[in-house]
């Protein structure tokens, strides 16, 4: 049986940025302290005409530009997000139409906190393994919400990444994947509420750290690896501090996580966060390199992936679409008033 894995990938980050200091000054806080505390300097902001559907389409189109796959060969699409544009009416069908994959395919939207995107990668992997589809497209994307003045306002941002999973011309083999799942209510958004609520410091030790450490440990045990066997490691990145800290606890070095640590420059893209990190690693990865990824979703758990880059990565037309680093640099700063307008804070009836 041939290896299953990533055949192509693409990512998308909106151009607008707001600096943490600009938000801080509105709420009478010190920007430098906040930036240092959160490890976030600035975050991406979607323009008024962007949402999870448009970000997913752009990321998916980038993935298709890098390879020669006929979109009609894509047999499944999963869009993971907690900010689908509609409460009822799928995002995946919009993406399917926009990339020319319809109508003979299966599609579903996932909402599974910040690991809905990696859940989609797992589903696609399983479907390919079962020979039910030739290729599957998994997307993690969000235009995440934060109440004005909440701590989340410094991090909640927009972006996403898309991965085509298959057996042919695999550029990154998914050697193994497993999950660690419990009901831990550290962050939620009730139906019909605009902004999420969270458990403050409860989001740390019993939530983020427990799940990532358990998942990562289980995975390394299962595939019999140690942190030093990996060239890159990517962890869910709700801020710039948690992933650095969890990497250290697990025995990974900063050098291993650096390439996949994007949150300081664009903030937390939620369902897109760990996957944008993976896209950034794929932008530079060389044949034979090994990648470790663990996502985390509040109240959802963690998905772990053990990945090996193949020789085919050199044949992938990576230059046909912008890299994460290029999109991080392509930016336009906005003030808080513009941010408020773009993120619908000024909505009234």
């Amino acid at each position, binding site marked *: 049986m041939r290896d299953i894995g990533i055949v192509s990938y693409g990512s998308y980050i909106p151009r607008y940025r707001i600096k943490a200091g600009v938000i801080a000054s509105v709420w009478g806080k010190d920007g430098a302290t906040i930036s240092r505390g959160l490890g976030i300097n600035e975050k991406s902001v979607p323009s*008024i005409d962007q949402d999870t*559907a*448009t970000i997913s389409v752009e990321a998916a189109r980038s993935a298709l530009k890098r390879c020669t796959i006929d979109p009609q060969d894509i047999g499944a699409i999963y869009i993971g997000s907690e900010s689908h544009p509609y409460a009822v009416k799928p995002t995946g069908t919009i993406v399917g*139409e926009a990339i020319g994959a319809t109508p003979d395919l299966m599609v579903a939207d996932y909402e599974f906190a910040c690991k809905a995107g990696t859940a989609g990668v797992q589903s696609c992997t399983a479907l390919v393994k079962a020979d039910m589809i030739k290729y599957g497209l998994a997307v993690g994307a969000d235009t995440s919400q934060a109440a004005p003045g909440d701590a989340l306002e410094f991090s909640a941002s927009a972006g996403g990444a898309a991965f085509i999973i298959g057996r042919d011309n695999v550029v990154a083999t998914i050697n193994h994947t497993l999950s660690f799942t419990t009901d831990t209510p550290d962050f939620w958004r009730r139906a019909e509420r605009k902004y999420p609520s969270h458990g403050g410091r409860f989001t740390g030790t019993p939530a983020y750290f427990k799940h990532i450490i358990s998942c990562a440990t289980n995975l390394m045990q299962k595939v019999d690896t140690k942190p030093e066997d990996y060239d890159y490691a990517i962890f869910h990145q709700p801020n710039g501090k948690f992933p650095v800290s969890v990497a250290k606890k697990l025995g990974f070095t900063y050098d291993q996580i650096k390439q996949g640590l994007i949150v300081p420059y664009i903030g937390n893209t939620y369902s897109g966060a760990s996957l944008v990190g993976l896209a950034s690693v794929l932008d530079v990865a060389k044949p034979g390199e090994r990648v470790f990824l663990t996502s985390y979703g509040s109240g959802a758990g963690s998905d772990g992936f053990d990945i090996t880059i193949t020789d085919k990565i050199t044949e992938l037309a990576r230059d046909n679409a912008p890299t994460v680093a290029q999109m991080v640099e392509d930016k336009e700063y906005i003030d808080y008033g513009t941010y408020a307008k773009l993120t619908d804070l000024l909505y009234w009836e």
Partner: protein
Amino acid sequence: MAGGVARFWREIPQRYNIIGNKCGSCERVFFPPREACPHCRRKSLGKMEDIKLSGKGEIITYTIIHVGPEAFKEQVPYPVAIIKLEEGPQITAQIVDCNIDEVKIGMKVENTFRRIQEDGYTGAIYYGYKFKPVKE
């Protein structure tokens, strides 16, 4: 947008993927697709073939809209241009992802997928093409 969702839905191939058509008689390309080629007319009947356009082109003329329709008022000032596509047809679209002062006649642009309009806060969201500068 008056007319409801059906009116948008039937144009999805054009709005999402810039599907035009080509006259089998003279090879001219049209966007949006035409029932018949205005040059070949009856000779073209039954020979108009759908084709996906590249979505790349050049700005022929443009304006910056300062007073926009209700559905666009939060975006002002915003550029709108007539773009000549590589395959020949010209289309009207918003230009995004650049400073409005950078928009110029002759500028090379490519399409990007965006929200175009929505029927207020409770209605459907209509997606489609806008154009952005081609990065050198």
